[in-house]
């Protein structure tokens, strides 16, 4: 499944970049993200609670930010496994300066497998857009508090 979108937030690219790299902020803002624990190798151990249609459950896995260019971009790589199967996300995130602050662009791919693919795939596109919007709204609020 393709993931693609953009959002403009009233804060500088530097602030947005910092917020979106901060595990505490991510746990507060990302719907369903319950834990994000830094690991020795620079990745994070992540626990998410997600529900798509009838498939609800706890997904555990790894999250890492790769190819990091400070205040400009990084690639978010996430692998999770749960009762409904697995979710793999590979997302390029870019921070561009744009009035009145920062345009965040994301583009990439999410792969789902197992029951979540068999039962929920048809709804996933809509669900992911919905989740991303919720996420960015919360990030925008965090940015205001800065």
């Amino acid at each position, binding site marked *: 499944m393709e993931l693609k979108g953009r959002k403009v937030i009233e804060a500088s690219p530097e602030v947005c970049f910092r917020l979106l790299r901060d595990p505490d902020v991510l746990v507060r803002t990302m719907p369903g993200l319950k834990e994000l624990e830094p690991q020795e190798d620079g990745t994070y151990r992540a626990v998410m609670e997600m529900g798509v*249609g009838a498939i609800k*459950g*706890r997904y555990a896995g790894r999250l890492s930010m790769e190819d990091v260019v400070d205040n400009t971009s990084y690639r978010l790589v996430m692998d999770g*496994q*749960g*009762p409904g*199967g*697995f979710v793999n996300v590979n997302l390029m995130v870019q921070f561009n300066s744009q009035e009145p602050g920062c345009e965040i662009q994301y583009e990439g791919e999410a*792969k*789902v*497998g*197992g*029951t979540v*693919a*068999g*039962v929920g*795939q*048809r709804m996933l596109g809509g669900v992911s857009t919905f989740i991303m919007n919720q996420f960015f709204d919360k990030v925008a609020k965090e940015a205001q508090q800065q």
Partner: protein
Amino acid sequence: MSRKLWGENVARREDIRLVQGQGQFTDDRVLPGMLYAAILRSPHAHAKIRQIDVASAQKMPGVIKVYTGSMVSGHLGTIPTAWIPPDSQLKMVPHPPLAVDRVRYVGEAVALVVAQDPYQAEEALYRILVDYEPLPAISDPVQALESSSPRLHEEAPENVALHWKVGTDTDEVFSGADVVVRQTFRQQRLIPNPMEPRSALVQYNSATGDMTAWLTTQNPHIHRFLMSGILGIPEHKLRVIAQDVGGGFGSKIACYADEVLTAFAARDLMRPVKWTESRSEHFVATTHGRDHYDEVELAGTKAGRVLAVRVKTYANMGAYLSTAGPGVPTILFGLIVNGAYDIAQASAEVYGVFTNTTPVDAYRGAGRPEATFLIERIMDVYAREIGMDPVELRRINLIKKEQFPYTNPFGIVYDSGDYHQTLDLALKTLDYASLRQEREALRRQHKYMGVGFSTYVEMCGLGPSQVAGAVGFQGGLWESATIRLHPTGKATVLTGASPHGQGEETTFGQIVADRLGIPLEDIDVVHGDTDRVSMGWGTYGSRSTAVGGGALAKAADRIVEKAKIIAAHMLEVPVGAVQYDAGQFYPEGSRERAVGIQDVTLQAHLGWNLPEGVEPGMEVSAFYDPTNFTYPFGTHVAVVSVDPDTGEVKLLRYLAVDDCGPAINPMIVEGQVHGGVVQGVGQALYEGAVYDGDGQLVSGSFMDYAMPKARFFPRLETQRTETPSPHNPLGVKGVGETGTIASTPAVVNAVMDALSSFGVVNLDMPLTPPKVWQAIQTSMAKGGPS
């Protein structure tokens, strides 16, 4: 002989317990101390298993034990296939019950949890940590043959499971023919979805070594045979029981890893263990059906005489070979691609291909729907090419009544038939001429109606054991029957057939009641228990009544034979002077002196005064091995309308004229036709399993997999003709699969007829509104309807 119940619409005796909720399905059964199993299934279509960590699952509340592939692999055999078609170069790849280091389809079993209750077992599944290394996956059988495609098995380096050719050399006919039509067809993958999902309950007695397995199976004796080998339990120590089974449609033929694992755990833990599939599991873990790419060519004259047909097929086998899997796209398909037509030359070439998908096995009709679809569709393509009415084309080419027994180009001998009679009856019932006029009139108003025909024949009543052996089926196909008359004249009838919705408790009762002249309520038909029934090969391939019924008729005749000797003794007349009619034995011309079969049976049991050389008791077994398959046939007609604005196809009328020989219970025959037609229409219009590019099944629930619903159908019209099978003791032919075989092409032909003025020759099934709408749009862009 009087036939009091033969031909009567006797209400199904099994329904009384079923509608009262007193059926005994496997999952209904509860045993003291019973544990529950759940199976962790691969979410990946193709992956290496690096590691499986069960430590945290093992600590979950209620968990008794967690099993992985490496724990069971030394103690269990692999899951075998039981059909090895000769000259097919079949690659018998190993299929471990639990994956050890690699998974090859979404749904493959990876671990088994046994817990105190089913919820604990399910919860613990998600604590099992499997470290997968995903591999590229392939789900399309044609793409899987490309050299760049991922490979599934070392034993099959090209992903080719089998390559099989049959038939005559057709090249010369094709090169010299006036007309050659070619068409490729896609026969999409279907998911059987019987009402009852699969289930297994197994109990092991460690003191005696006896194991009892309650299974959702169509063939308990085949399951016993295979499971005994896989588990290493002597056959006489393993009892398989399939009491009530809620439909199978072929999906409960196969021996699955799930039931083997449940049995293994029951033996290991020395506690009864039950496993029941969820509906979501069913979508990925139970065998699928069809999934062909076919290239069909037909050579004929301009006057409509078919000279040759040849077929090249790519059949998806899934990731492993299921029990009957290899026989379905070969023997049950290739040998009958000429259909009901007198075609001198025909050939079929089949590639069976491994892909990262759920294994494919028999699904209602198994191979014969696929063959029928091809010939019935290409006949319509040919008719359009030469500008002939498809009915006229069929009339010219159908095998004529006087040609029976008819040997087809593959050496198969069609037993009997009057194909034109069913066609004529269909045309008369429909008033075909006025239907065509109506179609033309509607067309002038830009309304699109279509009429589609399918004049089918199928090969069922499986079958002669000698042929089974010759075509590589690793079993016999005969059937057994035992009739046990108790001292009071009541009867227990045991059959090796294993009905699971077909109503043989009723129809077999009717056969015995008629032959022995005892009331139906005095007869119990017992099936689906390997300890009670000596042997049987089960219910599939429309064989139960043709073969199991044949055995039963033989057994009944033997009862009468023995009773007659005792009756003669009682009547003090020579055996040759005794007449028998409807349970009464009497001296010729003196019916008033008759003794009833019940009295004779009592004397046989008492044994006080039996004729010399006659053994006491009244129990007879018979084994019947048919000399040929049976060949039901008929004409099915679909009338549809297509809405050009939405692409929606509506079934306006459906007529099935079938000839399955004489009907023992016409109501049950009609019920079988209804169910079969609905399933076949499901393929034509609604159903389809869809895998994405990563081998994920994206149609894994009833929200995404469209099952046919009652409201999609008009009242189904049924008619019958009766042409007995000359070799079957009852003359019967079988009717369980005809509806599915005939209806799919009838409906597609009707839709193509409706779309003919848009220049549409073929669309891939299912014919969903977007697909039909798109075809109309494409035609409109080129100038619209002609």
